[in-house]
């Protein structure tokens, strides 16, 4: 496989021009600050790991923040429907990086709200899986690698975003968040979603991945004129037409594309508000 598990020691400053390196260093510093705040203030704490490029970058920064260790469990919400390359990548990384991985098997699709469109239903399985993990392991906080630029409703998120036990997100009444003072006090029955990557863009992630030599699932790179831009379940995620076979080519492609990142995901297009419904009921 294409993943390199022992990347060359790199330096942001060597990989890019000064401006880019400074920008990435600023983004990274912010993420590490948030990771450390979460670790200092929220316990028990876990991190969702989808094994995609964003959560890999996040995991990488966690290793930086905690000097090589990841001092909290990773939670994989497994529908059993990921592409085989994803599982292979996972099984290689976990022992190599000494990760405490907890695989959460999501309930079957038949148990989902049947009024949701089919692909959205698949995503709903993860919502329920997360809810089960929360209830069982009593997490007070889960870190999730979502970004503001990914999807419209995510633009509204706070870095520390409190949720009721059922995962519900009260987007109408969000806490003020300024001067890097995050909401870290909650009544019982509330947990917090922590979003350390909110301020990154898709292209930032790729530049950082390149600069740091972070391993990624090879499906992101084009084979036979197609590549995955976003990794989801195999029945609901499809590759996009592309010849980008290296990170540099991906970055070049992103600089001209007008196609949205989640274009390969059916769920987002099913109904106008399906993503919103998902999110307000606890999806990532």
């Amino acid at each position, binding site marked *: 496989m294409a993943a390199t598990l022992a990347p060359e020691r790199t*330096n942001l400053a060597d990989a890019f021009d000064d401006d*880019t390196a400074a920008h990435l260093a*600023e983004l990274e510093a912010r993420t590490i600050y948030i990771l*450390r705040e979460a670790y200092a203030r929220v316990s028990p704490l876990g991190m969702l790991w989808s094994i995609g490029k964003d959560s890999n970058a996040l995991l990488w920064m966690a290793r930086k923040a*905690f000097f090589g260790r990841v001092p909290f469990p990773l939670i994989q919400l497994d529908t059993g429907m990921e592409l085989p390359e994803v599982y292979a990548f996972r099984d290689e990384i976990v022992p190599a990086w000494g990760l405490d991985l907890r695989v959460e098997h999501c309930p079957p699709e038949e148990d989902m709200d049947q009024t949701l469109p089919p692909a959205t239903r698949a995503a709903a399985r993860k919502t329920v899986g997360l809810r089960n993990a929360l209830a069982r392991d009593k997490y007070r906080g889960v870190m999730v690698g979502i970004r503001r*630029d990914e999807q419209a409703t995510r*633009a509204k998120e706070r870095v520390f975003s409190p949720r009721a036990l059922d995962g519900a997100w009260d987007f109408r009444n969000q806490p003020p968040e300024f001067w890097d003072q995050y909401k870290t006090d909650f*009544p019982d029955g509330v947990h917090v979603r922590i979003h350390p990557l909110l301020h990154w863009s898709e292209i930032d992630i790729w530049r950082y991945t390149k600069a740091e030599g972070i391993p990624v699932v090879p499906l992101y790179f084009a084979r036979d004129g197609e590549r995955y831009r976003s990794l989801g379940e195999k029945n609901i995620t499809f590759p996009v037409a592309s010849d980008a076979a290296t990170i540099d080519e991906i970055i070049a492609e992103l600089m001209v594309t007008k196609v949205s990142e989640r274009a390969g995901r059916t769920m987002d297009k099913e109904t*106008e508000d399906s993503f919103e419904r998902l999110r307000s009921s606890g999806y990532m």
Partner: protein
Amino acid sequence: MTIRLNPMKIVVVGHVDHGKSTLIGRLLHDTGSLPDGKLEELTAMAERRGMPLEWSFVLDAFQAERDQAITIDTTQINFESDARPYVIIDAPGHREFLKNMVSGAASADAAVLVVDVAEGVREQSRRHAFLLRLLGLSQVVVAVNKMDLVGHDEARFRAVEAEVRAYLAEIGLSPDAVVPVAARAGENLASRAETMPWWDGPTLVAALDALAPLAPPLERPLRLPIQDVYKFDERRILVGRVEAGSFRVGDELVFSPSNRRARVRTIESWNAPVAKLEARAGEVVGFTLDEQIFAERGDVASHEASAPKLTNVFRATLFWLAERPLVVGDTLKLKVGPDEANVTVEAIENAIDTQTLGRAPTDAVGHNEVAEVVLRTREMLSLDDHRANPAGGRFVLVDGFDTVAGGVVSTEGYPDQREAMRVKGTNLYEVDHLLTAQGRAFRNGHRGGVIWMTGLSGAGKSTLAMRVEQRLFAKGYQAFVLDGDNVRKGLNADLGFSPDDRAENIRRVGEVAALFAEAGVIVITAFISPYRSDRDRARSAAGEAFHEVHVAADLATCEGRDPKGLYKRARAGEIGEFTGISAPYEPPEAPELVVDTSKQAIEACVDAIVAHVDARLAVRARAVGA
């Protein structure tokens, strides 16, 4: 199109209907940042509805597209000039504007203040500008909008420009540019308007392009608040973000408030090609020390010569976001960087009217109001004046689970308690006296003691002290007055009247008074001694022998007496930091005795104090008036 990095973050604020949404919509169009077909779509929609195209539809459409029926909170709108990309981090017109504006504006690099030329500066123009300032934003570009409504007249523009500049100057902001625009027609936004040939200044975009992105404050003294301490292996790593300044391996750091010191042994990182030897403002770091001193989350590391101030009471200007009012006596959680402490609202000094900038005394701070308050904590805090070091001088208040206020610290008027906290001469050993306190008391017929009078200038402390001394002496007590005159000339001749010097003055008086008391003398002090912390220290120096007497005449009475003409001069601004006028007086919480010279005759006050001494310090009865 190239995607450049590092977008500059801006907020657009201003009074309702002054054209914020129009300006944003038009700016997106004029910089070619609208998606293909968007304009045609909006034009068609306007035609269908039989109304002219409004540029604010662009925002509405964004909103509708993104959010369906949901009230938008913080949103991001990107546009790009030839020079750099921008992101507008808060869209105007929200219901709970203030709460959202502070969330967005606090992280902005710059703000655009939109003012309608026909209406001039209005309520929200002022309020928003005031809050921007409070949030620490210093780069502002003013767009004087709707120039078409006044025939593109230069005189009208200059009049509004003068009005805006005057208000901004009063709150300490100097706009980087004030630009005449007509947002709807795109005049002077991205391109120069032919309609205003008299204008030789920049377009709005050019004015924004000229601004600098915020740079971390490298030139300021080091401030490194400790976020956490890790012991994953044999290393004990302290982590935090360098908020200001820089440090190097080998530097001696002092940790506040504990005042402990150690040298930086290493700067730690993971997967770095070379070991770091220096860390600078904006970086998150981990480091180890040469000595295992106790340090914890919330401590602030700095260099010795430029350490933050230590205090447990300070003034602040805050904005209050909660529905319920803030009142004196409220206890809330204070967060300054990673530090947390419970604070009590000791006083609400003034409400600030953001319109007139007038200050008026108030009992309560209402929803979305701004006020000046005095906050007190139990433990010592390390703080900076927000003007000197923003990150160490701003805080939020948490009530229960919610953030209810943000504020900035002013360290004026309260002394630095660092010197006083330090245990000096650590290798001095006290020599045991062979004489006991009882022996002295038996010889004198009374114990030694400190009669510590505190009160405003003009309250009558000196008069009372001299009378009490005279009466006690007549009754056979060993009594002596320490006052400003006999102390300032010698012992404290090196001290001035700054808060720090005053604190030191009182500290020395406290120590000397304690020695007198130990020698068996009843020492009477007559100092304003306005700060509770200073008096508490004097009390701990003298221990049981300390008797605090509050000479409690009210301010009006004292000012009426004004024996030395000091109040008049203070009111005239000739004397700065004058207690009661421009510096605080903190009345004792539990004094041993209170006398009120505005209600009681001097003789009655003297009687009360002498009676207290008789009751508490005499070891054998003494003839009255002997």
